[in-house]
């Protein structure tokens, strides 16, 4: 009996503080830069989960490549061709961080593992809390590091660095 009580008391703080979250109404945007123009594309089909214990949070966010759309459907098709979306249909980001970070009101940096075009790389994402469990996050994706053959116009390739901006809203499940 005593053993059970001790075990119960030991597990209690973990279970009380353990929280699971999922994404709601979130967006991801990328910006492609070329010498003569800038192009924006956005996805609203992000899915994500975050599990937090008393000490650590772990998350996974993913989006289908084809869900990123710009104002030009032909350009979107070129993007699918360039990123070989038929072979690598999803892009995802995951990471772990201390649960305390969720309480921060100022910007903080989070190392995230990004899988894109079948290649995984680590980026330092800047996290900015906007309101309760809502965050704006950004980092610069490097196309060459993900073995993307950068498309060109008039012999000039698009820039290697692609700024990514995420607006993430988490709701408890």
């Amino acid at each position, binding site marked *: *009996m005593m053993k*059970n*009580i001790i*075990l*119960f008391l030991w*597990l*209690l703080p*973990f*279970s009380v503080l*353990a*929280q*699971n979250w999922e994404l709601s109404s979130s967006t991801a945007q990328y910006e492609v830069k070329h010498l*003569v*123009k*800038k*192009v*924006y594309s956005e996805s609203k089909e992000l*899915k*994500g*989960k*975050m*599990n*937090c*214990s008393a000490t650590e949070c*772990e*998350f*996974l966010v*993913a989006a*289908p490549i084809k869900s990123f759309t710009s*104002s*030009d*459907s*032909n350009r979107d*098709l*070129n993007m*699918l*061709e360039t990123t070989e*979306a*038929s*072979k*690598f*249909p*999803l892009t*995802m980001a*995951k990471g772990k961080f201390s649960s305390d970070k969720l309480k921060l009101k100022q910007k903080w940096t989070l190392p995230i593992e990004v899988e894109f075009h079948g290649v995984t790389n680590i980026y330092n994402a800047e996290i900015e809390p906007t309101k309760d469990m809502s965050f704006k996050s950004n980092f610069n994706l490097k196309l060459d590091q993900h073995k993307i053959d950068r498309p060109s*116009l*008039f012999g000039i390739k698009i820039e290697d660095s692609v700024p990514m901006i995420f607006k993430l809203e988490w709701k408890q499940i």
Partner: protein
Amino acid sequence: MKLLFSILFLISTYSSAHAEISLSDLGMSNEVSVAETTPKFESEMKERTEKLRKHQVLGLTTWGMMSATMLTGGSALDSNLHMYLGMATGALYLTTAYYSLTAPKPTNIKDKTRMKWHKALAWVHFPLMLIVPYLGYQYKKHEDNNQKHSALEKQHSALAGALYGTFTISTALMVIEF
């Protein structure tokens, strides 16, 4: 017994918080859907991308050539440069149109507003592209032979302006993000 259930519940809550999150937890899969991997779809996409890339580059080149043709319009009766530039513009225009019209379009592709305008303007500049060079040719022929110009021939410059305007807007729609 109650306490044992409570402990089991707590353990399951704790372990679920620590389980590695997978794509299946998000209801997603990295597996490729059959519809997107059929050889027909793949080859259509490749052909479309290639052709539209050529359409884009040739379209901008055509616009440059058309600009040069417009700039030499004033000296059209003094030299043949305007005529040759016009002929080159026409050839480039038709080649550009060829790549657009023959690019396969998978059924799930829907045109957005800018693309709809880009295509709609072709209904204006395409007939003008056929009429304007013909009127220019007729004008020059009649001028060289000291013959009278028809009323339509005299509209060569105005129609060329309309052609250049609609083609410029059509090109700008694809180049500039409004």
